[in-house]
């Protein structure tokens, strides 16, 4: 193990270097670009054996890595925001064809208005596209999650692509200490990729992407659901293997001071760090505050979340995205987790940080205050909004 000072983007690129994929498709989009810039330098310096395709759009980035992955190669790309939105057609093709493509996504607001800063509207818009979705609180998790993603995606009982998220700028462009595996350990952890069927390595010719009508489509989609369920089956065996190498734990949902908590906030990515600071402060004041950080968003760990939250008085759910005219994405999952409990805790949904708006400790303290007083409702509440 070695400690390096890396931005979140640098950490993803470092993991990509160690994974040394056969093919990577690169296309720029703020704030993901530094991942591909760093990786392209590795390519042109001969530090990796990857063949890099400098494509002309995100749609072609995903199309090319689908071609490469179906050919039998380990293939990756990376994107953000409207780039992911442009890819949406082929993002669904990749999971439909059960191709283990891994893709860092640096979260950024969807347009319009155009905004280059962080929120989760882009990956939330893809939450039902059949990809595994891992969210990272910081550069260290962005690094570790890349290895989890590779092993999860390529597991023969799973074979689904994975998105690895980190917050735009907040994580991607901030330098943090990151403990990295040595190259050999990383290499042996992910092993080699040997697909059962592929265009170039299979003995007999294979047809990918055939037309399935009302007679077979339903069956193929049902298989995708089984593959997602298998992520729960095999996740901890893979996570424990990584824990032995790093010493860090990788729960589906990470509890922080939740055992005796009366109020717990639920959040994704970098907001968790700020909330932990507030939890520490409130704990010093004797207040039983806690945080539950969701790491694996798809498939969503309903039972684990419900176990963590069932004993508390009230829960605040922090969404950095919105569903116009409906409960926000994370809020709706939390409500689903708690549904059916005898005394389910009270739940309040908060929307914060859209388009990069800062999440201040004062906002978090206000939320905790209301939740300790049991003030919750079905009304959406906004943190950091003027007016």
């Amino acid at each position, binding site marked *: 193990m070695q400690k390096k000072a890396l931005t979140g983007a640098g950490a993803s690129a470092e993991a990509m270097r160690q994974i040394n994929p056969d093919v990577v498709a690169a296309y720029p989009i703020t704030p993901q670009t530094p991942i591909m810039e760093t990786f392209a330098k590795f390519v042109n310096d001969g530090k990796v054996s990857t063949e890099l395709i400098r494509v002309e759009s995100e749609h072609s980035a995903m199309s090319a890595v689908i071609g490469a992955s179906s050919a039998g190669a380990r293939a990756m790309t990376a994107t953000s925001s409207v780039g992911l939105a442009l890819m949406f057609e082929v993002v669904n093709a990749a999971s*439909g064809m059960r191709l283990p493509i891994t893709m860092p996504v640096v979260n950024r607001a969807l347009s319009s208005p155009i905004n280059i800063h962080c929120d989760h509207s882009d990956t939330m818009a893809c939450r039902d596209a059949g990809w595994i979705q891992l969210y990272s609180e910081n550069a260290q998790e962005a690094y570790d999650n890349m290895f989890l993603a590779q092993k999860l995606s390529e597991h023969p009982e799973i074979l689904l692509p994975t998105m690895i998220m980190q917050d735009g700028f907040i994580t991607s462009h901030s330098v943090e200490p990151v403990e990295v595996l040595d190259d050999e350990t990383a290499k042996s952890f992910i092993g080699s990729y040997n697909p059962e*069927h592929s265009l170039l390595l299979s003995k007999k010719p294979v*047809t*990918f992407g055939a037309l399935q009508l009302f007679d077979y489509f339903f069956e193929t989609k049902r*298989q995708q659901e089984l593959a997602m369920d298998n992520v729960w089956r095999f996740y901890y065996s893979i996570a424990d293997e990584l824990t032995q190498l790093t010493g860090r734990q990788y729960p589906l949902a990470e509890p922080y001071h939740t055992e005796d908590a009366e109020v717990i906030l639920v959040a994704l990515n970098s907001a968790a760090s700020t909330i932990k600071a507030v939890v520490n402060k409130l704990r010093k004041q004797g207040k039983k505050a806690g945080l539950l950080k969701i790491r694996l968003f798809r498939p969503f760990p309903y039972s684990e979340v419900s176990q963590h939250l069932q004993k508390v008085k009230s829960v605040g759910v922090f969404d950095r995205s919105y569903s116009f005219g409906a409960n926000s994405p994370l809020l709706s999952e939390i409500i689903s987790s708690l549904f059916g409990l005898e005394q389910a805790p009270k739940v309040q949904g908060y929307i914060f940080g859209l388009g990069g708006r800062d999440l201040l400790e004062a906002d978090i303290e206000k939320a905790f205050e209301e939740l300790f007083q049991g003030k919750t409702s079905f009304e959406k509440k906004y943190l950091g909004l003027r007016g």
Partner: protein
Amino acid sequence: MKKNWMEIPKGGLIIDSNTSLENKTGDWRSMKPEFIPEKCIHCMKCVFYCPESCIPTTAGDHPKRLETNFEYCKGCGICANVCPKNAIVMKEEEKD
């Protein structure tokens, strides 16, 4: 009987080749090519232009044209159209 969802390959892949041979398109025909061997000069034009590639030939360096494989022939008539010797004539298909 169609396979259930546990039995078909993942991702809608078709992994055993030649599967379309099961689909005998011959029953599409309403017209049928009638081959007149004496006129045929084995120029291979009908073989080249058959959209179903269902006109077999003998092996060897100078293949000879054999009878159309009516399991697949759709009766389009291109073979008759391109034949330089009128060795193929389209006839109404008598449905037995």
